[in-house]
């Protein structure tokens, strides 16, 4: 170690005297080798700050996870196989991704003032369900900047300024660096990334995930085992600090990969998305289900026509953020009980709104005769994050709206569909389905009777919180 090294270190530690500074400054100006040593040392200094802070957070996260009494589902890896990394276009993909990140950053930051970056906010905590926070409680509608969130239990959804939705499932430690870059130190997250936020990144201790237009879940358990499940679209994953970005691997929907810190390889694992179901439900806009209502697990197998359940009313997310450009035939748009509308009376939802669509279905395996007195009843309740603007419950209207609002991969079949509504003039309504939209417009209660028709109702929910659109 020579004087130069010592002086550089004193400069980096903000302890250099003015006289030593003159000496150091002169050497850096006159001697290229000295400037090279300076650059090397500042690079190490910056990397040490980044690496040691990250390690510190990881230690905290693992300690918190180990201390938690919550049981965590183990990540299955029944048939691990090394992935083929020879993807011819991966360099182009990564380059495109970098470009998209840049473009996305521009979009997300346009219109923001250039105030103090230390107070820059990147997301809003939009909803939380039974959330318990460590140290600093976070409230709904709180703005979140570059900080570490420590969720002991429950669920919390972050709506990013760029349009990304990320839900944490506790115990979890999640760090936000900026609008597009985050880090999951431990726990479970699910994310829905719209086009405006393509390139969104979630780093973990074992691998880095870059979204390529998609929905996905990431889990990091207390032992460092890390898994990525892709529900829709695709993501790029790479080992952190790998030789280069070109070593990223694409993972498409219905696939999952796993690794652990320092493993050196990313393995394909069996797609098991059940552990993400609760978090995914909140990411998808459902705050709560109770009774026999159940939000389906994420993934391409869990769509209408491919997934049945005799014991639950299932909720399938169908489409997001659809702009209604023509009138849509509906059955109910105001709070109250759904009653059959006379055929000659036409009710439509006016165009001009953006909506998410969901299909709620009770389809027990095996068919019961229409007038079978042994029909079973099933009840459930669901609460959405935004107001319900309309219900579509009659078979012909469901069929008419399938192309615009139905799930693109669903098979709705040819069986009769819809809700057998209560008839106002008929005193004998036993065996009919009861559907009630509460005054808050967010809560829907169903009391369904199994019958020969597949009980189905399509729910249209505003995609933004602009309640003036309800008028």
């Amino acid at each position, binding site marked *: 170690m020579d004087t130069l*090294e010592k002086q550089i270190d004193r400069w980096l530690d903000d302890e250099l005297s003015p006289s030593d500074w003159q000496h150091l400054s002169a050497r850096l*100006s006159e001697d290229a080798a000295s400037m090279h040593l300076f*650059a090397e040392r*500042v690079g190490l200094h910056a990397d*040490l700050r980044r690496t040691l802070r990250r390690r510190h957070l990881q230690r905290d996260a693992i300690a918190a996870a180990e201390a938690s009494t919550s049981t965590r589902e183990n990540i299955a890896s029944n048939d691990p196989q090394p992935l083929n990394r020879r993807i011819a276009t991966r360099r182009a993909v990564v380059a495109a991704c970098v470009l998209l990140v840049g473009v996305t950053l521009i979009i997300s*930051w346009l219109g923001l003032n250039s105030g103090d970056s230390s107070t*820059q906010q990147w997301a809003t905590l939009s909803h939380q369900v039974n959330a318990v926070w460590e140290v600093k409680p976070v409230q709904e509608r709180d703005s979140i900047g570059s900080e570490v969130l420590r969720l002991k239990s429950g669920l919390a959804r972050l709506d990013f300024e760029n349009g990304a939705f990320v839900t944490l499932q506790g115990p979890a430690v999640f760090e936000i660096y900026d609008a597009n870059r985050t880090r999951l130190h431990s726990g479970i997250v699910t994310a829905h990334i719209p086009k405006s936020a393509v390139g969104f990144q979630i780093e973990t201790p074992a691998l880095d995930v870059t979204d390529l237009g998609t929905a996905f879940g990431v889990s990091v358990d207390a032992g460092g085992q890390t898994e990525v499940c892709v529900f829709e679209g695709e993501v790029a994953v790479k080992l952190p*600090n790998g030789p280069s970005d070109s070593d990223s691997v694409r993972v498409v929907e219905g696939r999952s990969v796993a690794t652990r810190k320092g493993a050196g390889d990313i393995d394909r694992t069996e797609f098991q998305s059940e552990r993400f179901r609760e978090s995914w439900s909140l990411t998808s806009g459902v705050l709560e289900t109770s009774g026999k209502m159940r939000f389906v697990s994420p993934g391409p197998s869990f769509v209408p026509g491919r997934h049945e359940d005799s014991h639950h009313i299932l909720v399938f997310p169908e489409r997001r953020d659809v702009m209604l450009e023509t009138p849509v035939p509906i059955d109910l748009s105001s709070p109250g009980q759904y009653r059959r509308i006379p055929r000659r009376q036409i009710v439509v939802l006016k165009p001009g709104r953006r909506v998410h669509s969901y299909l709620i279905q009770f389809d027990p395996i095996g068919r019961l005769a229409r007038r079978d007195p042994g029909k079973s009843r099933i009840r459930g309740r669901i609460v959405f994050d935004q107001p319900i603007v309309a219900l579509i419950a009659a078979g012909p209207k469901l069929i008419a709206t399938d192309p615009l609002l139905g799930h693109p991969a669903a098979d709705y079949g040819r069986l009769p569909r819809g809700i057998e509504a209560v008839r106002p003039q008929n005193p004998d309504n036993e065996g009919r389905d009861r559907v009630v939209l509460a005054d808050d417009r967010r809560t829907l209660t169903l009391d369904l009777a199994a019958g020969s028709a597949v009980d189905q109702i399509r729910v249209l929910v505003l995609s933004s919180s602009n309640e003036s659109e309800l008028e």
Partner: protein
Amino acid sequence: MAAYVFGAISRFHDAEDVTQHIAQELARRFDEYDSQRPFVGWALWIAKSRVIDFYRKQGRDRLVLSEDMLQKLAEVIVDRQSHRDDRRAALEQCLDRLPERSRRLLDLRYVEELPAERMAEAVGSTAGSVRVLLTRVRHVLAECIQKRLSADSV
């Protein structure tokens, strides 16, 4: 980028605030970037302006790098950036090989952000010894990283 700003501005929080300002400006001005030219060079050109802005706000009593030195630092960093990921990977391994006492010292400096006097109190030593030891640890790490990079390139 971080290396450049950390080299130009000593205090962690100041450097990190300026880095974030630069990231915002890069995003706002991304359409000005000519893709025929190196991105890092363009980014460091913008970074230099923000560092100089920071110097101006701090007043004349602070020690600062001259514009000429900032330019030279940027040029060296551009030359070195192709091995950035390799250096970070090597650093992870080299940190794991350090004695516990050295890692503790680094944590005190980089995580707890203590000055030498407070680090000395924490480890029961003197400020002078802590400064010498910290420089020695950085020197050992730099050598270890260099050895690993040389071994990998063989």
